[in-house]
């Protein structure tokens, strides 16, 4: 399931991608927020020590405020005061009247951390005393954080460790979810693969993909039904043709037998015997046609099992040529069988009866579909990959339409003419071979080539 492993990889990759996108997105949001806040409320912060440096106690005890400090105080602080070491207010600016003028150490400790009467305050201590700057109530949030140093040192290790843990957890989770998905999808993929190979599939209709599984089961049922119907139809058709082919043989035997007897009867007039010859020849032709049709329909629907045996094609070619010459006894037909001496020993594995039929059909086609003298050449060739039977004549060749029919893809209905040659193609196809019909002008060349499965030499 290489495909599924790749899906799993992509799934984990996607999960990592999602994590990265979230990090980047959040970082962007934070940056955006900060920039936006800065824009809405420009940084006004002037360090408190600078303000403190601008507020000085003179030797006479007077407090002087530098010119530059005033606008800062005015603009950014609600009020300000300076305490001496005894906690007494020695200077103030816009200080609310309800606030005390003297502060104890605990007061100072309290507001320096938190608030003074709800005013968020900032303090700065120097040799002049303690400067207290107050913002508007509700304008600042203050929170004190404390931590031991040990914890702070540990944090250097713990924070990266926690991040790493997060990363590992995210990866593991992605892997786990991906694996679960993979497990759930595995039978589904197997089912689809089975369907593609024409096998039936039955999946459990549970889990994440139950709807898909149910659909696949339905598709499989439908395919099975269709295939059964098709097979039934093909079988019926083939059986019907086989039945007709069987039933026609007895009447044909009668026609042929009686015609042959009349043909041989010397007491009959020559004309009558000639007519009897025609009847005999044509009934033989019908017999061959029916037999071809029967075999073609069986091969078409793959109902003809191949009886593969080892034999010498040279012997088969000579037998077929001799059979035709003996049967036709026609002086105008000449057959030259050209078999290189080395190929007399060639042994091949194929269905000998079917191949003999193919060769007979080719020879008969050359002999009977040409008028006048016909020279037929029969050749046997072989190399390491293929062995070939070549049958060529010097007759009129085939029409373009018949040639097209011969190359029509398997499964198309059988043609009305040229059945004998279509049968040749089917027989070669059934052996995993290839056939070529070439108009040589003049003449037709048929080349049947078969893969070499086993080749032995016998002395």
């Amino acid at each position, binding site marked *: 399931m290489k495909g599924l492993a790749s899906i799993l990889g992509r799934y984990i990759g996607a999960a990592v991608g999602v994590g990265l996108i979230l990090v980047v997105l959040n970082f962007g949001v934070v940056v955006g927020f900060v920039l936006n806040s800065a824009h809405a409320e420009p940084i006004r912060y002037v360090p408190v020590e600078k303000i403190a440096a601008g507020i000085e106690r003179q030797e006479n005890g007077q407090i002087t405020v530098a010119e530059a400090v005033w606008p800062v105080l005015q603009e950014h602080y609600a009020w300000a005061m300076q305490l001496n070491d005894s906690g007494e207010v020695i200077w103030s600016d816009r200080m609310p009247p309800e606030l005390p003028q003297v502060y104890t150490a605990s007061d100072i400790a309290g507001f320096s951390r938190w608030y003074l009467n709800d005013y968020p305050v900032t303090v700065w201590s120097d040799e002049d005393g303690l400067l207290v700057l107050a913002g508007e109530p509700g304008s600042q949030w203050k929170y004190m954080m404390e931590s031991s140093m040990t914890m702070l040192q540990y944090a250097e290790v713990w924070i990266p460790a926690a991040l790493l843990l997060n990363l590992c957890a995210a990866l593991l989770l992605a892997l786990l979810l991906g694996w679960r998905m993979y497990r759930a999808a595995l039978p589904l993929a197997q089912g689809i693969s089975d369907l593609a190979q024409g096998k039936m599939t039955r999946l459990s209709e549970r889990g994440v993909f139950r709807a898909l599984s149910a659909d696949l089961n339905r598709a499989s049922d439908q395919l099975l039904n269709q295939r059964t119907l098709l097979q039934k139809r093909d079988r019926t058709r083939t059986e019907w043709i086989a039945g007709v082919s069987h039933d026609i043989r007895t009447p*044909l035997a009668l026609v*042929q*037998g009686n015609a042959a007897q009349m043909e041989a009867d010397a007491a009959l007039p020559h004309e009558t015997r000639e007519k009897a010859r025609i009847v005999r020849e044509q*009934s033989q032709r019908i017999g061959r046609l029916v037999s071809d049709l029967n075999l073609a329909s069986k091969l078409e629907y793959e109902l003809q099992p191949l009886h593969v045996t080892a034999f010498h094609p040279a012997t088969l070619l000579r*037998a077929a*040529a001799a059979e035709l010459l*003996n049967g036709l006894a026609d002086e105008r037909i000449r057959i030259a069988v050209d078999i290189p001496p080395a190929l*007399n020993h060639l042994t091949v594995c194929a269905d000998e*009866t079917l191949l003999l039929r193919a060769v007979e059909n080719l020879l008969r086609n050359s002999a009977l579909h040409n008028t006048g003298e016909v020279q037929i050449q029969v050749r046997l060739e072989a190399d390491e990959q293929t062995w070939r039977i070549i049958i060529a004549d010097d007759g009129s060749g085939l029409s373009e339409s018949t040639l097209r029919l011969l190359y029509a893809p398997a499964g198309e209905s059988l043609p009305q003419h040229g059945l004998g040659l279509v049968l040749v193609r089917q027989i070669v196809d059934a052996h995993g071979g290839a056939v070529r019909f070439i108009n040589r002008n003049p003449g037709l060349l048929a080349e049947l080539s078969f893969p070499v499965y086993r080749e032995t030499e016998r002395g």
Partner: protein
Amino acid sequence: MDSIYECSVLVVDDETALCGMIAQMLSQAGFRTVYTAHSCEQARCVAAQRQPDAILLDVMLPDGDGFSLMQELRRARDMPILFLSARDADTDRLHGLGLGADDYIVKPFLPQELILRLTAVLRRSYSSVLHTEEEKLVLDDTVIDWGSGTVHRGDAVLSLTAKEYAILRKLADNRGNIVTIDALCRAAWDDDTFGYENTLMVHIRRLRAKIEQTPSKPRWLLTVRGLGYKLVREKSV
């Protein structure tokens, strides 16, 4: 028995017209006794009463199948049986021959083919009880006596070797037809591999020396180049 044509033949086929036609063919070919039957039942009766020497048996009969009938008849008496069937599938043919039939002829057939195959089976089956060889091969002034395996020309008597006899017999059985090199090798050596081709040529040359007037220009035993040999028929006058 002087001749295979003395053999009685039973033809079993449910098609009466076909039965009649075959009986006529056999009579014309010279067979003196031909019986017909149209069912298993009739065939059993005739076989028991007349004890035919050979049976031509259809595979599909109205009251049973020829395969079973053959086994039944063979149990009673051993005799050559040839199937005559409209079933042409390899499986049927192999089944019939596998059961021990002497031949399996598919319909439709030519009369000569039927007669040739029947006589071949009879000759094979009854060779031991044939008192005299039923025929001699006559080629002009040369006579081949199959019984003694000799060639008579004038006063001279030449013997045929076993291989020459087998080759000439095969050619004579298929007289007028081309017999391939492979078929001749099979007849003489029971092997159709091509290794015997040269030896076969030597035997043919010797045969020609014995049966031809002018062996270098043979009149009877002709070579068909690339295919085999042929013993020509006597020219009809």
